[in-house]
């Protein structure tokens, strides 16, 4: 096995035994990025020198006997998480040259463990999209089939993990933006419970829905990343002060007594691809063989999820993105001599179409006369969607579903029709509206060789049962060991 193909935990073992150094590992990854990322397009910026310096510091720490699970481990970071001294663009022209002077909470956490940051990875502009096609910087290709999208918005994160251009990545998930690309690229992606990980330094899209989480090569690595970046932060008023468990301790054998819930609404969804449906049904059988029992549950408001989400998320986005005015940072239209014209010129040239679409939609649903009909109504339905989950979890420990209705689609296929793109988020949006954790785990391949993901959702702050379910499934199957051949 080549060094870039290692999981975090295998690389950690080799580092601890001093069979490899972080410098070797980091160099191997930088060479591979140099060699292969032209085809994939995962990275927006590569922090090569900084990464090599971090690797040297990690090696010094290891030599002194100070090693934790992430010491010397090279990772990629979605380009909307602020990294001190490394350009953070949100894949937008409006932040093209923005260099943060501070680190996000999660970056501080990674640095504290002496992890190595290789660079920043591509995404849909301001995390708005399901294909990474809305990036103003570049197109990212799916490592399993270069003519297809990697998913989005954390498409660069998922592609960089799948193509072994990093050992793990941090992404963000507002409506499925970690889970859907993880599913399309055949990696493990976790959206933790809202409030589990501080959003300080995460550039905001929809603040009541955004959550940072890991994309990794296996379930154990996901738990290792969660251990590192979880926890309370006084700089994020929505961060929750609950003890952080050792997530790796949940990765142990045995599913006896576990009840998995199967929502009848999800599996009767008319856009659901038959191969995806079959892969998920087979996954349920595998879990039953391992000792779990399944029970049918109902999430009756599922069909209203897309409608509620595409009021709430654009409403919050229109407010959050008001800050891009060309005054304090980012792009400015310097040709305009009057303040209002400068605002308009800056924002019109700085934002791409999808961002403009959501700002207009969000401003509209919040405007006088429409607020009650749209925003208030959607927020009421949000409560009903959340209550559906509360009731369902009385009957089961975890809920299983597809992640995306189909495997990865081809580049350009849905770009012209936003509503069709939005409707494909049906299985992932509800976890954000309810604030519950959800994981995408490789559970099969289409006949054409495209990865298919299984979604495992749990109750608030019950990542434990997700990890237990996912770990046992992974141990019993081989899907996570398959690598893309095109490279």
């Amino acid at each position: 096995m080549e060094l870039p193909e290692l999981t975090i935990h295998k690389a950690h073992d080799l580092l601890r035994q001093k069979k490899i150094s972080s410098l070797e590992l980091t160099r191997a990854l930088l060479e591979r990025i140099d060699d292969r990322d032209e085809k994939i397009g995962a990275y927006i910026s590569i922090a090569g020198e900084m990464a090599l310096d971090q690797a040297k510091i990690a090696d010094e720490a290891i030599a002194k006997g100070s090693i934790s699970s992430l010491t010397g481990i090279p990772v990629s970071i979605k380009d909307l998480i602020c990294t001190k001294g490394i350009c953070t663009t949100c894949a937008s022209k409006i932040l093209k040259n923005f260099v943060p002077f501070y680190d996000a909470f999660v970056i501080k956490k990674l640095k504290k463990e002496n992890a190595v940051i290789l660079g920043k990875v591509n995404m849909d502009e301001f995390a708005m999209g399901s294909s990474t096609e809305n990036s103003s910087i570049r197109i990212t290709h799916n490592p399993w089939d270069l003519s297809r999208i990697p998913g989005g918005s954390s498409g660069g994160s998922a592609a960089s993990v799948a193509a072994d251009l990093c050992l793990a990545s941090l992404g963000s998930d507002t409506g499925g933006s970690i889970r859907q690309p993880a599913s399309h690229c055949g990696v493990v992606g976790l959206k933790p419970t809202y409030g589990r990980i501080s959003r300080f330094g995460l550039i905001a899209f929809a603040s009541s829905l955004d959550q940072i989480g890991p994309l990794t090569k296996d379930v154990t690595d996901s738990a290792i990343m969660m251990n590192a970046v979880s926890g309370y932060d006084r700089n994020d008023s929505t961060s929750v002060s609950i003890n952080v468990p050792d997530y790796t301790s949940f990765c142990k054998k045995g599913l006896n007594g576990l009840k998995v819930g199967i929502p009848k609404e999800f599996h009767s969804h008319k856009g659901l691809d038959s191969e995806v449906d079959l892969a998920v049904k087979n996954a349920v059988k595998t879990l039953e063989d391992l000792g779990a029992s399944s029970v049918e549950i109902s999430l009756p408001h599922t069909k209203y999820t897309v409608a509620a989400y595409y009021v709430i998320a654009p409403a919050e986005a229109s407010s959050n993105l008001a800050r891009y005015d060309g005054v304090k940072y980012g792009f400015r239209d310097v040709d305009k001599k009057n303040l209002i014209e400068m605002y308009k010129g800056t924002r019109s040239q700085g934002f791409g179409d999808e961002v403009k679409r959501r700002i207009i939609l969000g401003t509209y649903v919040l405007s006088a006369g429409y607020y009650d009909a749209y925003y208030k109504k959607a927020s009421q339905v949000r409560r009903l969607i959340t209550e559906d989950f509360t009731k369902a979890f009385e009957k089961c420990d975890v809920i299983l579903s597809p992640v995306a209705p189909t495997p990865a689609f081809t580049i350009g296929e849905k770009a012209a029709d936003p509503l069709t793109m939005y409707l494909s988020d049906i299985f992932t949006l509800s976890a954000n509206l309810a604030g519950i954790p959800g994981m995408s785990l490789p559970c099969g391949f289409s006949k054409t060789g495209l990865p298919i993901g299984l979604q495992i959702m749990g109750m608030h702050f019950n990542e434990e049962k997700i990890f237990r379910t996912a770990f046992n499934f992974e141990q019993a199957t081989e899907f996570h060991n398959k690598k893309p051949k095109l490279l």
Partner: protein
Amino acid sequence: MKITHNEVMHVASLARLDLHENDVEMFAEQIGKILEHVDTLDNVNTDGVEPATHAIPLSNVFRNDDQKEDANREAVLSNAPEQEDGAFIVPKIIE
């Protein structure tokens, strides 16, 4: 049409966006379709349902109003499109 050209232009102006004529047409059509889908929410009985604006119960977080070193002025100004004498420069506001 669920949302008219004029409404798109008005809302865009509120959001400080200038749109090309072709874009107004495109956005009116696309946003119209999305709003038609959003109208399915009318089928849900929400009488007496408290709106949920957050995913988890939240309460205000307070801190003492103490002076502390956060970021220095130079760092804060480091990304400014235009700056002078420790201040952000903007086009003339009052004519």
